[in-house]
């Protein structure tokens, strides 16, 4: 019991203040997840329509669009890693960065040159600290991506993809993002965005899309329609990934802050007990001293 009573009380107060902060951050994260989920569900109809339309055009025309064109021997690849702007979210950014590093390694092993794109300050700081070249980076919107911001990212990726490989373009683009499975589970994932693999089954289950797609007419022709649809589709995918990542970030933050609050609570309990013990032993000691002093005085009087 080395610490003095005063020190123990001081430490308890400081832990209590920290607990208030982590508790506030936990609540903020929780309320923002609700908003993030709402935004995600409101953008669902658009995603659904876009997926259907792209699937329709792609399956009715055999047209080979640049965005869907698969290079036979890809030599250059780009990786977009989605991380957070701020820390205090547990292992959220670290997990995404680790998966990104693994992906880059795999691509290099396949003999491809890899360009890295990063969103989120954590990822940028990671690359800067290790002196790694970054082809493009964005920050400041990791917990609330708007369309304008995600379009900027998507357009940069499309541009890199459409450039010929010899001029610094890439043959394929991968995205590493953290998928929001539930409030408790968020999992980093790799998705290839470009070249597009158009799947007839939309990513989101569509209750209205029963039966085969109708025989669409394309006005003026399938190629023009596809030209205007695919960039929208890529932008939408990127926005979807960024939104998933934002929800995951907030959920991780909430989880991290919850355990910080819990830890602070148990620490406060321990410090309170220690302080009580110190106070009691101080009192005991004082009583012993008084009793001891009094009997010493009494003995002295007897001898006189």
């Amino acid at each position: 019991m080395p610490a003095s009573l005063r020190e123990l009380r001081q430490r308890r107060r400081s832990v209590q203040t920290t607990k208030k902060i982590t508790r506030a951050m936990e609540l903020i994260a929780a309320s923002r997840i609700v908003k993030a989920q709402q935004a995600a569900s409101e953008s669902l109809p658009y995603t659904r329509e876009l997926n259907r339309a792209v699937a329709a055009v792609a399956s009715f025309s055999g047209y080979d669009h640049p965005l869907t064109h698969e290079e036979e021997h890809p030599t250059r690849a780009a990786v977009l890693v989605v991380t957070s702007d701020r820390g205090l979210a547990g292992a959220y950014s670290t997990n995404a960065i680790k998966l990104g590093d693994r992906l880059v390694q795999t691509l290099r092993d396949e003999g491809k040159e890899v360009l890295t794109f990063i969103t989120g300050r954590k990822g940028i700081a990671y690359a800067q600290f290790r002196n790694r070249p970054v082809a493009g980076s964005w920050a400041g919107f990791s917990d609330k991506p708007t369309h304008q911001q995600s379009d900027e990212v998507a357009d940069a990726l499309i541009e890199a993809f459409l450039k010929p490989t010899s001029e610094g373009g890439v043959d394929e683009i991968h995205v590493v993002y953290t998928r929001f499975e539930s409030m408790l589970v968020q999992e980093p994932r790799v998705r290839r965005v470009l070249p597009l693999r158009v799947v007839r089954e939309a990513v989101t289950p569509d209750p209205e899309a029963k039966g085969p797609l109708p025989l669409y007419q394309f006005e003026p022709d399938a190629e023009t329609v596809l030209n205007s649809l695919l960039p929208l589709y890529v932008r939408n995918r990127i926005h979807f990934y960024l939104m998933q990542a934002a929800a995951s970030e907030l959920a991780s933050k909430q989880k991290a802050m919850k355990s910080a609050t819990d830890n602070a609570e148990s620490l406060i309990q321990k410090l309170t007990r220690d302080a009580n013990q110190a106070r009691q032993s101080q009192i005991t000691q004082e009583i012993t001293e008084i009793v001891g002093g009094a009997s010493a005085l009494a003995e002295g009087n007897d001898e006189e």
Partner: protein
Amino acid sequence: MAETFWVEIVAADRRVWEGDAISVVARTTEGDIGVLARHEPMIAPLIPSTSEITTPDGRREIVVVDGGFLSVTPTRVALISPSAQLAHEISLAEAEAELRTAQKALEAGDTTEENHRHFQRASAQVKAVHLIA
């Protein structure tokens, strides 16, 4: 009574409008197109413009779309655009300011596609506000 069909206007972040309609007029890259009930299934890209929807009670819904596309299926018609606004959601002052900026840029020789779209969007917004006024 004219035959009606279901119309949805979907923007990237929300469903802007949905309901029964008698006709839809939208501007595709090929020009204005009018859709009535039982139109053949079709997909066409839109340019930034005002679209008009006539509802069964005779009202007109004016909506400004920023590109996107028109999708006609046997069951419904959808206007899908990265951003769409109903006319009464638009502020005239803001739209006119936008239009002036875009016009100035055009006159200054900025003929990029982006600025052209900006101009189209702003003039569509101004037009939409005047249409409901």
